[in-house]
């Protein structure tokens, strides 16, 4: 086992990896940009090294700075987390060239899966169905226009190096194509330092279902079942579940087998996720992409299977065999995760950076909160605005939702806006409760929401609650006034006293 691991990331995922290191008695090394001096992940580490200024291309994406920190600290391995350099094969190569272990798959596997076009080719070769679309990147707007006309609208533009909805645009008609193409290219360039874009036919009302796989360096490949991530906003997942509400054992077996075929095809090592689109109408699934890293939503799989995926990543990278085989993977109950973002749901989900002046995390049976911030911390404008992942487990989906509802109501964040109020409405939405999910869920949810007089689960605006709010404000005001006058009074007095003494003094000589 390694003695020291450097975590080339920040926020909640750095905290998560640090906890796995602690469990394995491995010393965790943090890195931080100037914006993150004093951040939670730094406070939790044994060692920490500054790697540059706030913008991520000068710090968390700065390969030289990371390798130099690793060398200084004596770390033997680097865990990339997700995002940043997690799927950057050049980084993995540089780590290996420096004589360190990259905790993830081989750069070759990353290369294939890192480009969505070559990933599609690999899937086709492995005999796994794919969504109709290009396997080549689009060189120009004109190429995009031609290809789109060939498949017919609607189409999807996607960043070849992409993930997390960045550089992704849905296009309903030709008139929208040019601005979508430019936006996708520029976002892709900013997020992944790679502006390559490709195009797919849009599958209508698909579920987004992904399979967690795990492989070791001894040729063992297993799957840990599916996660349903259909609830997306701007192509970013916001709620994930394990298992899918479909909860179909034979479908899980089919998709699991397909995912393993792809893992075998690229001699995969470590944790990986194969994403599929699933159509309720046809019960068919299509390979979408493979994420060659830990997923944000890995906790729901951990809660249901009992397997610690981050711990397993580390032991597998150290050369150990998988600590379980396929027959030992059991799915118990149901888990759901909400990604809590510093965004204002009442204002079109605009980021809401600032200081967290109050933080009450939920607790109790079945609740797990993977947070990246503490009370008093600053949510900066430089990084992804996710501040925590709230995950719950229950014996059934219904119990999980009941616990999620309770946990969301307990959760309180002051000083910034968060997506918590949005989740509080979703968990009370009849379509969500029924498990009728697809990637268009949020759009339809917003329509239902606007049709209601006031949010579900909340008192109407003119309730006694509003009077109570006014009373609390008035109380705070009255007490503040009393404190001010209490402080003023003696000061006033002493000023007069001083003045009197001074006046006497000044008169005496005169």
């Amino acid at each position, binding site marked *: 086992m390694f003695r020291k691991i450097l975590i080339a990331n920040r926020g909640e995922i750095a905290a998560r990896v640090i906890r796995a290191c602690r469990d394995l008695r491995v010393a965790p090394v943090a890195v931080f940009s100037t914006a993150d001096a004093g951040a939670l992940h730094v406070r939790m580490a044994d060692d920490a090294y500054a790697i540059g200024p706030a913008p991520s291309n000068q710090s968390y994406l700065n390969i030289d700075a990371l390798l130099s920190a690793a060398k200084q600290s004596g770390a033997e391995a680097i865990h990339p987390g997700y995002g940043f350099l997690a799927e950057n094969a050049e980084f993995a190569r540089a780590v290996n060239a420096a004589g360190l272990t990259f905790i993830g798959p081989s750069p070759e596997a990353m290369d294939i899966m890192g480009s969505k076009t070559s990933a599609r080719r690999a899937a086709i070769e492995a005999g796994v169905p794919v969504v109709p679309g290009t396997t080549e990147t689009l060189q120009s707007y004109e190429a995009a226009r031609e290809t789109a006309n060939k498949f017919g609208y609607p189409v999807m533009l996607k960043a070849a190096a992409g993930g997390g909805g*960045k550089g992704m645009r849905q296009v309903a008609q030709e008139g929208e194509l040019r*601005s979508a193409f*430019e*936006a996708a290219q*520029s*976002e892709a360039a*900013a*997020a992944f330092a790679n502006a390559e874009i490709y195009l797919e036919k849009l599958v209508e009302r698909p579920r987004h279902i992904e399979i967690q796989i795990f492989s070791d360096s001894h040729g063992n490949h297993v799957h840990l079942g599916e996660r349903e991530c259909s609830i997306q906003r*701007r192509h970013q997942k916001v709620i994930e579940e394990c298992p899918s509400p479909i909860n179909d054992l034979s479908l899980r077996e089919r998709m699991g087998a397909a995912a393993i075929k792809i893992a075998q095809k690229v001699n995969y090592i470590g944790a990986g996720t194969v994403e599929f689109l699933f159509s309720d109408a046809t019960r068919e699934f299509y390979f979408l992409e493979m994420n060659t890293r830990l997923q944000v939503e890995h906790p729901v799989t951990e809660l249901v299977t009992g397997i610690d995926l981050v711990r397993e990543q580390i032991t597998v990278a150290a050369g150990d065999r998988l600590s379980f085989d396929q027959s030992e993977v059991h799915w118990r109950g149901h888990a759901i995760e909400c990604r809590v973002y510093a965004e*204002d749901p009442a*204002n079109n989900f*605009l*980021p*809401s*950076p600032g200081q967290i*002046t*109050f933080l009450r995390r939920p607790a109790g049976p079945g609740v797990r909160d993977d947070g990246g911030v503490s009370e008093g911390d600053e949510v900066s*404008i*430089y*990084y*992804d*605005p996710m501040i925590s992942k709230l995950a719950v487990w229950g014996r059934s989906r219904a119990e999980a939702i009941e616990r999620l509802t309770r946990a*969301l*109501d307990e959760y*309180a964040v*002051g*000083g910034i806006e968060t997506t*918590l*109020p949005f989740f*509080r409405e979703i968990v009370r939405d009849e379509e969500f409760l029924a498990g009728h999910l697809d990637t268009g869920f949020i759009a339809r949810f917003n329509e239902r929401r606007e049709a209601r007089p006031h949010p579900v689960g*909340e*008192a109407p*605006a*003119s309730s*006694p*609650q*509003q*009077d*109570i*709010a*006014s*009373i*609390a*404000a*008035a*109380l*705070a*005001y*009255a*007490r*503040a*006034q009393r404190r001010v006058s209490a402080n003023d009074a003696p000061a006033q007095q002493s000023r007069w006293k001083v003045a009197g003494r001074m006046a006497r003094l000044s008169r005496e000589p005169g």
Partner: protein
Amino acid sequence: MKLEAVIGEHQSEIEIREDSGRVWAEIDGRHYELDVHESGAGGYLLISDGQVFECRVEGRAESGKQIEVVVGTRRYSITLTDPRKLKSATSASAHGDNAARIVAPMPGKVVRIMVEVGTEVAAGDGILVVEAMKMQNEMKSPKVGKVLALNVEPGATVNGGDVLAVIE
């Protein structure tokens, strides 16, 4: 103490009286008798007729300033006015003109501007794109009109609240 409270468009008169942890309040003729427990950091536990209200007052409570109060999971923005402090207060009435301002909702960087001064725009047309936290946000025109002013250039760093463009 008598105060005026405004929540959204609803205005009311509040009178409160405190005596050793008990509070009597009257709002527009509705009477409340409450047990109050202050927990520091703006926490106020109010119990009215057995009913529990966990409240948190964010920031400092000043007259004429917006106060954020969370009751349970619900947040209210309240503006209190203390009539004793009204001497120099001016009502912050809306500007009377017809122009729509495109305001930066948070700090970020302008990455693209799709219009020029004088461009005729429809409601929903993109005006400019601001990037923050790695997400590009297209700022759209809220109305039909003409671009009256563009206060920023591509690449400019903007703060939350900055007026980026004005549509006439």
